[in-house]
């Protein structure tokens, strides 16, 4: 926000040249610099001092500002990264707007890199002159302030979403947790045991699920989907679609009578289609909320005329065929995106027969086969005939690390879960043979490599370095053709079952949601972080935070850490009374704007939109980060960065270059 500022002709600028002991004065003739500038238009006083950053130095600046009624100052000293804040604070104490302070870097970028005193002094004069040119054109600015709604929306009820919701709620803020499926738990609840400790996945996740459902500050919305999001950081308006469950969660007492009489049999998603459920069902015994859900797509018709058997037997009268989709509206200040991942389809790798042969399964299907709560009760049986397989071939990198045909990235968790699969298989079937095809074994993680070594040495899993070319059926066996790249020989293995470590990909259909949120993704459809090193849990779009595999392949500890980090960032945001944002943004001059919209395409933050009614661009200053890409692209000079306008840049260039 700009505040009333004097015209450049009326500005009184003070110049303070620092000796920095001999650091500057040893090379640059500081007195000469102060002297050379004293008659420059706009400069009303100039002086030098041994250490400007010292207490007496700062006091001198404060006193001089007051005494000489200065409207702006230039401190010619070290790099602005060191003492810009120091001098801004001093100026504030003297009653000067901090955006009227200029730091001329004559140490790091001059006296420390040049030895010719004459040249360094001349250069210092030019540097300082350019700052005078800028200073007389600087506007008084105030940080942009905006209120924050201290409630968060978490999208996704997998382990990342649960952790983020719990942490934010424990910070003392309200959370709305939206999950599209009937129960929370995500992919993790489907896993058998987790590497490298072999904890039972359900045993460690269900307490968290219960905690979420009982937390007084978490509003759990399962079987809901985010419909639209508007607004900006601190002030989002969210429309959430409630899908009809046809069962009242509060009335359902889980007696299960409805399920017994339902005539419709459907593949069970929780068991990856390896078993069946009814059209009215509970996804798994520990599902939260504990309620049955009637699957509309598979029900005979939601009408007592068509069937209605479940309704007839429901004692608490929980079933209601007339439930309709409804929309809920919520206001939140921050949004955590924890939408998870899916597996690359086996169809894409037709040569491995995943779609053709029942006994070729993906990693998640094998998790269900290993799980005590799975379709086989934890006994390893192959899907086709229920026999215990005596030879299992595991294929890593199915789709991952294939720049030519599939996905270029590493899915990160497959090396470890394949080792786990092979190990658990050997524990369950001690006389069985486990063979793993791998490109590299990547075990970067705490206690990961030890786990892999155990798989090889103690559990005698055979690792073959190489790729599989084809899987086909001969009798009731699967023949796996591959190559051992260490010996250069072809390999043929007879297997009873083949497990494909399919790559992790973005959640199916998530792009529609991300489009509604208007947040950016990488080329693979994973949500992009604001900065790969410095802002890894924030989206580029202010107010959005990332957790878990929505951001890219991750194992559980990483997903949980990221969720906690995202929650901490939400906490940072909510701890502020109001949001304060740098005012050096790029507004639009409506009178000059032609409405071409070029700047809209330049902005990576979605801060600029074309207002069709006015025919000019509208800027949301709170979203603008002040890079200035739009200002450089604007063909009519309507987009000008505050305190770095084109006029300022041109005048600085004149001061530096015109002899």
């Amino acid at each position: 926000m700009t505040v009333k500022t004097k015209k450049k002709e009326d500005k009184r600028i003070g110049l303070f040249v620092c000796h920095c002991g001999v650091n500057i004065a040893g090379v640059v003739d500081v007195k000469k610099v102060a002297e050379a500038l004293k008659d420059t238009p706009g400069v009303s006083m100039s002086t030098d001092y041994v250490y400007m950053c010292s207490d007496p130095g700062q006091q001198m600046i404060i006193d001089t500002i007051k005494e000489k009624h200065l409207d702006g100052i230039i401190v010619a000293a070290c790099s602005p990264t060191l003492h810009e804040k120091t001098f801004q604070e001093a100026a504030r104490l003297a009653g000067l707007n901090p955006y009227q302070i200029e730091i001329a870097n004559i140490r790091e970028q001059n006296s420390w890199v040049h030895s010719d005193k004459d040249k360094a002094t001349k250069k210092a004069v030019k540097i300082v002159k350019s700052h005078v040119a800028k200073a007389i054109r600087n506007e008084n600015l105030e940080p942009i302030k905006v209120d924050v709604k201290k409630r968060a929306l978490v999208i996704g009820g997998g382990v990342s979403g649960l952790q983020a919701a719990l942490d934010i709620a424990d910070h003392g803020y309200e959370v709305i947790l939206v999950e599209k499926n009937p129960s929370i738990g995500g992919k993790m609840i489907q896993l058998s045991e987790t590497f490298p400790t072999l904890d039972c996945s359900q045993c460690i996740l269900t307490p968290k699920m219960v905690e979420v459902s009982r937390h007084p500050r978490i509003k759990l919305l399962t079987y809901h989907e985010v419909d639209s999001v508007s607004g900006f950081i601190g002030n989002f308006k969210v429309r959430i679609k409630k899908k009809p469950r046809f069962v009242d969660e509060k009335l359902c007492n889980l007696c299960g009578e409805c399920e017994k009489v339902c005539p419709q049999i459907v593949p069970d998603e929780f068991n990856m289609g390896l078993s069946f459920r009814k059209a009215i069902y509970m996804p798994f015994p520990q599902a939260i909320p504990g309620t049955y859900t009637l699957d509309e797509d598979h029900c005979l018709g939601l009408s007592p005329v068509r069937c209605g058997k479940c309704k007839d037997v429901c004692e608490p009268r929980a079933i209601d065929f007339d439930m309709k989709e409804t929309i809920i509206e919520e206001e939140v200040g921050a949004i955590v995106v924890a939408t998870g991942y899916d597996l690359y389809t086996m169809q894409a790798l037709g040569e491995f027969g995943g779609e053709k042969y029942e006994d070729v399964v993906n990693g998640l299907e094998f998790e269900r086969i290993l799980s005590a709560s799975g379709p086989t009760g934890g006994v390893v049986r192959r899907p086709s005939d229920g026999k215990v397989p005596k030879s299992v071939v595991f294929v890593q990198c199915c789709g991952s690390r294939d720049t030519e045909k599939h996905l270029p990235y590493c899915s990160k968790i497959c090396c470890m879960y394949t080792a786990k699969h092979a190990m658990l298989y050997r524990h369950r079937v001690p006389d069985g043979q486990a063979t793993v095809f791998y490109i590299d074994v990547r075990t970067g993680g705490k206690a990961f490599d030890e786990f892999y070594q155990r798989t090889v040495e103690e559990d005698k899993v055979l690792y073959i370095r190489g790729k599989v070319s084809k899987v086909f059926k001969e009798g009731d066996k699967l023949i796996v053709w591959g190559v051992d790249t260490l010996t250069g020989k072809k390999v043929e293995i007879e297997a009873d079952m083949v497990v494909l470590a399919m790559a992790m990909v973005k959640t199916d259909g998530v792009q529609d949601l991300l489009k509604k949120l208007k947040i950016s993704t990488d080329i693979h459809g994973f949500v992009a972080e604001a900065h790969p090193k410095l802002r890894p849990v924030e989206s580029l779009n202010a107010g959005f935070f990332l957790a878990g595999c929505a951001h890219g392949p991750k194992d559980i500890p990483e997903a949980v850490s990221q969720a906690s980090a995202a929650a901490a960032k939400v906490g940072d945001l909510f701890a502020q009374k109001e949001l304060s944002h740098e005012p050096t943004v790029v507004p639009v001059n409506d009178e000059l704007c032609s409405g071409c919209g070029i700047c809209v395409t330049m902005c990576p933050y979605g801060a600029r939109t074309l207002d069709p009614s006015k025919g000019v661009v509208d800027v949301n200053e709170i979203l603008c980060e002040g890079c200035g890409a739009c200002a450089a692209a604007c063909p009519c000079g309507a987009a000008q960065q505050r305190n770095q306008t084109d006029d300022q840049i041109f005048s600085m260039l004149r001061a530096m270059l015109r002899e």
Partner: protein
Amino acid sequence: MFEPQIMCFLCKWCTSAAADLAGTSRLHHVANTINMRVMCSSRVDPQHILYAFKEGADGVFLGGCHPGDCHYVEGNYKTLRRIALFKKMLADLGIDPRRLRLEWISAAEGKKYAETMNEFTEQIRALGPLDLNDKALVREVVKDE
């Protein structure tokens, strides 16, 4: 010997930090260059560059973050595209495109910064002074106070 004047636009996050690092590491280099710190290399408008030439710069240097490291995510890519196009235009205006140089110098590359300054200055010295007297077009393209 001809002493060229070189105008450098440095992005705040990477190349200006590299210039500071060259300073703290006392990596002496030629004094022919003078720096302007901008928030991002993408803030630099070709107009600014042309204006620098008009005001007496014999060479113009533009420094940004390495691809993928931009503080504003993709500003450096925008600069890359803009400069590639602008160099063609420079040639049409009669200015040798070698007088404009774009480099990615990270905050850790003080040495690269100092070496680049020396090397670019030598290159401009070899090209000789920029004479815009017969280049009325440039004067027309850039505005003046």
